């Protein structure tokens, strides 16, 4: 809620007038050709790249936790939550996907898009987690961030940003830290531009009043596909996959959410999370299909009751993993909570091929290898193969991992659990365990065959009416 960190830096530089020298317009080209054919010492023409565009709106809203969870009065469920949360409502801030809404007019990259009624109407319709954002090396990623304000907290005139967590060699203007660059005040839009050169799994979040805004839900997962192909995690043969599933791990402290909904100040040294979430949902909601927050209908999978689609409309991202026998499945995991998480997948062996958006297989590039030309892979390096076989991974806040497993041959649908070791998470006021409802747990469903190809990441499909 405070505006910015209070700066006390000892050195104070006076503002200087623009004073841009004109005589050395070619100075930026001075290094061109020093290392032939390799950035970063050259200027590149990025105008021909394929543009991938997302538009997200930051606002507040309400999501539903599983109906089986125990109440934690008076903080959870929130008594002011709307009906669709089915008595398990929690107040959030979030990034709402408005990419498909009418709103762009004129030249998109001149910011000529007044906030149309359709987009304005998404105020207090935040989603958790944000849409999965993905792009490929060789594309030109544009993220439009609109600040719609907080419907329930008009007293909080918070700005918002997008920090693309882990993006290498970022300029501060596109790094989304309000102290070091700019933030979008209410009613304004910022456009971020990224030229992705490093494939891998990342995450993004707001960095304004970070501990509060991230904790309230302004976060999402994103990843970059390699130039080698959209069915590879990195530019290496052993990272090929048939389906991919991305997971953003967090915990939720209902006190924080309640405090923000009811005009209370937070003391973060009292942080006490009661839920662990995958993609904004807790078990058993995690294995429900993807929802469309725009329509309130499900996006994919076998039909589920309308009560479920309405309840999960604003935590729309599924965590169900599916495979046909013999398929290679890529699991991407990022942790944007404030605690370490340890995930186990009993019965299936995974190979960890990447961490922190870097390949760890043989041939991975040297740290000091210059970024490649747009759309080109890194030069093969000489560093050691650090990939490992495992059925468990742990990652701290702000880390990511990429694992691939090969689905076993089965004759009937077979289920493997995939869960946080801290899975029996929610407890009631007397400390009684809640049987895992409210924890970060999902499942791997392996079918003999019959699953259609995945059209987008995390898409789930139905085989004979089953997911």
């Amino acid at each position, binding site marked *: *809620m405070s505006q910015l960190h*209070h700066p*006390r830096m000892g050195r104070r530089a006076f503002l200087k007038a623009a004073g*841009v020298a004109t005589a050395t317009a070619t100075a930026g080209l001075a290094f061109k050709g020093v290392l032939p054919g390799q950035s970063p010492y050259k200027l590149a023409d990025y105008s021909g790249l394929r543009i991938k565009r997302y538009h997200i709106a930051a606002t507040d809203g309400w999501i539903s936790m599983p109906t089986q969870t125990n109440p934690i009065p008076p903080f959870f469920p929130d008594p002011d939550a709307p009906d669709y949360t089915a008595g398990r409502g929690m107040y959030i801030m979030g990034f709402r996907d408005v990419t498909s809404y009418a709103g762009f007019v004129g030249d998109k990259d001149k910011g000529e898009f007044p906030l149309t009624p359709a987009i304005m109407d998404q105020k207090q319709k935040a989603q958790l987690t944000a849409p999965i954002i993905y792009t490929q090396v060789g594309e030109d990623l544009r993220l439009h961030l609109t600040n719609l304000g907080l419907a329930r907290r008009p007293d909080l005139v918070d*700005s918002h940003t997008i920090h693309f967590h882990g993006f290498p060699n970022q300029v501060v203007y596109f790094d989304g830290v309000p102290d070091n660059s*700019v933030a979008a005040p209410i009613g304004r839009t910022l456009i971020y531009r990224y030229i992705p050169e490093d494939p891998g799994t990342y995450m993004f979040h707001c*960095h304004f009043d970070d501990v509060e805004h991230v904790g309230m839900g302004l976060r999402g997962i994103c990843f970059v596909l390699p130039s080698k192909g959209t069915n590879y995690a990195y530019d290496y043969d052993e990272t090929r996959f048939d389906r991919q599933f991305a997971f953003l791990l967090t915990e939720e402290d209902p006190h924080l959410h309640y405090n923000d909904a009811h005009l209370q100040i937070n003391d*973060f040294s009292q942080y006490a999370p009661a839920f662990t979430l995958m993609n904004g949902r807790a078990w058993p909601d995690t294995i429900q299909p993807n929802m469309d927050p725009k329509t309130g209908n499900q996006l994919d999978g076998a039909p589920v009751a309308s009560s479920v689609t309405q309840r999960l409309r604003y935590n729309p991202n599924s965590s169900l993993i599916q495979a046909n026998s013999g398929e290679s499945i890529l699991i991407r995991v990022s942790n944007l909570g404030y605690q370490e998480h340890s995930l186990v997948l009993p019965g299936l062996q995974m190979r960890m091929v990447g961490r922190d958006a870097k390949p760890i297989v043989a041939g991975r590039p040297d*740290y000091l290898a210059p970024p490649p030309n747009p759309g080109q892979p890194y030069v093969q390096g000489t*560093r050691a193969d650090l990939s490992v076989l495992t059925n468990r991974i742990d990652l701290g806040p702000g880390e990511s991992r990429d694992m691939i497993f090969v689905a076993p041959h089965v004759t009937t649908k077979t289920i493997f659990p995939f869960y946080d070791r801290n899975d029996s998470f929610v407890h009631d006021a007397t400390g009684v365990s809640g049987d895992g409802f409210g924890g970060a747990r999902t499942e791997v469903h392996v079918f003999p065959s019959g699953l259609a190809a995945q059209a987008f990441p995390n898409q789930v499909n139905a085989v004979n009416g089953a997911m």
Partner: protein
Amino acid sequence: MATEATDARKVLDADSDDAATPRRSFRAGATRLRGIHWLPLVLVAAVGVGVNLPVRATNLHKPNPSEGLICSYGNATTISVTQGTTTTQVVSRSFVLTARDGYITTNDGNSIYMWSYAEGDKDFQYPGPFLCAYEGDQVTVTLRNTLKVPTSIVFTGVPGVKSDGAVSQPDGGAAGPTTSLSQPAAPGSSVTYTFTTAHPGTFEYASGTDAQLQVQMGMVGGLIVRPSTPAAQCASATPPASCAYVYNPANAANYAYDTPYSKFNTNTEFVHLFSEIDPDLHHWIERGNTSYDWSKYNARYFMINGRCFPDDLAPNNVSNQPTQPYGALVHVQARTPSNPDPALVRYLNAGLVSIPFHAHGNHESTVGIDGHELVTASGADASLDRFDIVVAPGQTVDAQFTWVDAQSWQPDTNPVGVPVPDQQDRLEGPYWNGSPYLGDLQPLATGRVSYNECGEFYHFAHDHDLIHITSFGISGGGGQLTLVRVDPPPNLQAKYGTTCTVPGK
């Protein structure tokens, strides 16, 4: 030999002031010489008496840089060690640490009672000084205790430590109770620890007496061992490969370990020592209590090098933090072919929980962990690039950092291609250069304070357990958060007519 070493140090100390010319000429000479130090005859002939000593006995180091690691090299002399019929020259390096109490300040104005290590007769400081030595040195650390309780030092990761001449080990045993993990000094007395630095790396030293309490009270510091290979070995006809990967302060680039993968720019060496403070505990001890109910433990201040953000951005030895001498600003220049070597950040975690430290801007390459280089058994480079370096309690991690202007956005030749909002449509941060472009310093809105010097970029580097970037639980200030300053390279400084303070000066 000892006399010659002292003389050499005197000469070098004398011209270590800012009168640059004599120092620079000496350094240039030393650079050339060290590059060929497997030819000691040339060395002696060229410079004469004194320089045939191991380089580590001399003191070419910057005594007190305003940013980056401040090393204490102690008092070094060269001594002869005879084993059988072989006599070798080794460096004997001695330090005096005085356990003292004192107060530090936090970014929110609080004052915290602490115990820590002062160097020699100097005043209280927190954390303890960073002791620097070379591989193979015989190190002596004398601990003088001015506290009202016994105290001692454990050198984590350093083998063969002796206390007052005997092997250092815990008291008590299985029958207990254990009061000390190594030989303590009683109040008002002292104890002497000796060891030979077996291998290069970053190590923690901390209290081993009532350690849970005393480390929390601030009794922690760092030991840095720099790679070195004995001159005699490097003078042989077939010198070992490690002779090429030593630390010499006169060199522009140096190594953290005996391997080529650990190279770094000598002027950009930084340390981040993490610690956490439960203010209730410190208040309790300040009132004269000797123990604490650890079930009540709740850290509310989180520090890098003993300072909370933004106090940690201030220079080393800043006057308004007289007991907290170490800043945590990381300052580099964008990587170019003429500035190819990365910075080195040495991480130490003195707290009780793991710190997932996230540097914005670029991955860091972890080249060493717990004082051991990351190589495979066959010698292959096993370093790992991470955007989030998790440092466990008691762990040390050495990481390279560099930042390259990958897209080379420039307003005239390569504009960012998306609109920059007008001032009324944006909120500006005080570290921003006012422009998307590196080196382009533009004014901020009327009334906004700017801390930008020359169009440089500032990136966050912080604990991503975001609870730890608060002070006393308040969002938006404090904690284990610092900035990485990236300066425009010389061609962009020339383009925009700006001049940046040079990193490491």
